[in-house]
């Protein structure tokens, strides 16, 4: 049984079919790349899987459970973490608060216990902060723990986003263009980090990416979308040489009458 399974998944926006009957299976421990030209439906597919937008048709199963109709916060609590295409950190929280926030809903003591200042809640908060600092230290960011995220560079903010997702020990980690806006040395670092997430912590990864270097070096398998339809699914070498994929990216023999954006 695949960890994540999408069956005939569709999403329409008015008359536009953003995702069209896509079948996608991600096995536990895999790094799967999701690529396609701009506007091909990659981000919509990610939003469907993580419950950010609702499904028009089809089903999504995670560890065999149907999660199609669940709200995104429930899906997150089942163990699917994600990052966003544009950096989306909480500006009014410190870096440390940003990364420990996902632990809060998973704590044994509730919000009321925390508001009443109960010892157990305070201990859990301290443990969360310690864990947050430990992970930030691993990414070389612990010195910024008390700063607002806006004090960090784009590359550092991306790392904070990774920490925020990793801190809960997700089973599936969906990364939406993590290399966007990163300098080449940081891209190298990112590749190493993603590989370690899988190799050392066994996290399954679904990676939406434009930077082909990242996709080629990391992915066990690549899925290609074009106009919301899955046009290829297989090992990176075969997929990147597939004539349909080449055509989707570079255009066929004739000029494309429609712009994609």
């Amino acid at each position, binding site marked *: 049984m695949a960890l994540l399974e999408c069956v005939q998944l569709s999403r329409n926006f008015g008359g536009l079919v953003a995702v069209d009957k896509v079948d996608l299976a991600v096995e536990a421990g895999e790094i799967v790349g999701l690529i396609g030209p701009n506007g091909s439906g990659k981000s919509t597919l990610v939003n469907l899987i*993580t419950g*950010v937008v609702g499904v028009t048709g089809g089903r999504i199963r995670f560890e065999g459970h149907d999660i199609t109709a669940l*709200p*995104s*916060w429930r899906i*997150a*609590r089942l163990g699917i*973490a*994600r990052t*966003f295409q544009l950096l*989306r950190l*909480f*500006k*009014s*929280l410190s870096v440390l*608060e940003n990364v420990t*926030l*996902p632990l*809060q*809903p*998973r*704590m044994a003591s509730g*919000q009321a216990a*925390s*508001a*009443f*200042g109960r010892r157990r*809640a305070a201990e859990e*908060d301290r443990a969360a902060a310690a864990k947050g600092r430990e992970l930030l230290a691993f990414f070389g960011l612990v010195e910024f723990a008390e700063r607002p995220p806006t004090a960090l560079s784009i590359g550092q903010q991306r790392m904070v986003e990774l920490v*925020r*997702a990793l801190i*809960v020990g997700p089973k599936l980690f969906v990364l939406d263009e993590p290399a966007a806006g990163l300098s080449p040395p940081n891209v190298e670092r990112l590749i190493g980090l993603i590989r370690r997430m899988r190799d050392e912590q066994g996290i399954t990864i679904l990676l939406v990416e434009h930077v082909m270097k990242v996709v080629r070096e990391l992915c066990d398998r690549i899925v290609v979308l074009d106009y919301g339809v899955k046009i290829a699914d297989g090992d990176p070498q075969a997929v990147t040489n597939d004539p349909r994929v080449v055509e989707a990216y570079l255009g066929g023999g004739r000029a494309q009458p429609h712009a994609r954006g």
Partner: protein
Amino acid sequence: MRRILPALLALAALALVPLASPSGYLLHMLIVVFLYVILAAGLDLVMGYCGQYSFAQGAFYGIGAYAAAILHRDLGLDFWQTLPLGVLSAGAFGLLLGIPSLRLSGHFLSITTIAFQTIIYLLLTQWTSFTGGQYGLPVPKVGTLSLFGHELFRIEKVREFYFLALAVMAVALLVAWRLAASRIGREWRAIHDDELVARAIGINVTRDKLVAFVASAALAGAAGVLVAYYLEGVSPSDFSIWTSATVVAMVIVGGRGTILGPAAGAVVFTLMPEVLRATADYKLIIFGVLMIVMVIFMPMGAAGLLRRERS
């Protein structure tokens, strides 16, 4: 701890004020300040922390006040019984207003809160058989609190009421501070920044927003019960949209999401018209101009500016 000590000192200083035998006028002004501090700190939870702009704090204030008056009239309940019931009534209406916030945001939510405020005000003025209409309803003095037949204390004079209002304000600020400084406060700030991401990392945004509306309204309800007993009566004009707008101005000018900022805003906006007596007719114009200036030059309010200077 470093925050608790100054707060305790400030409360102690306020508790000593009546000992200096001040004028009744000063005590009256301070009681009004305390009421508005409760309203502004309450609104700060839903507006400053959770980011849901509500123009209905005056309505919840009114619900608390009328709950006190009606419970006294119909059931003969006294202050100590109506205080928790007024808080609960306002909280229940807060839950009701919280429901649209799950689907609406920004200006649309603000308009809904204005509609809610208007409906409550119309009910207070028009449903004469229940609310007394424009004439309002009488409320007795707080009187004595007795426990097992022993009189604990008596609250009849302004000076005695001052301590009661101070105590309720202290408790209200404690509640607001604990909520804001604990986990739910952090979740509110996250929702304020980016609701979609908050959801995506597993936060139950629906529940957190409702808690914000209920807590905010419940605090306003406490202020409402207090004002009903202080003025020994309720009338609709105290609970109009102007009250709501003034509390919004207190929160924005004082500094959103800081509790103490809006409390300071409440002090300034309550005392300013007294100091500038001559310009009373232009009060709202001055408030409006002040708010626009603040939003443009200090969007995070006075407290936000102080915080930035420090860091």
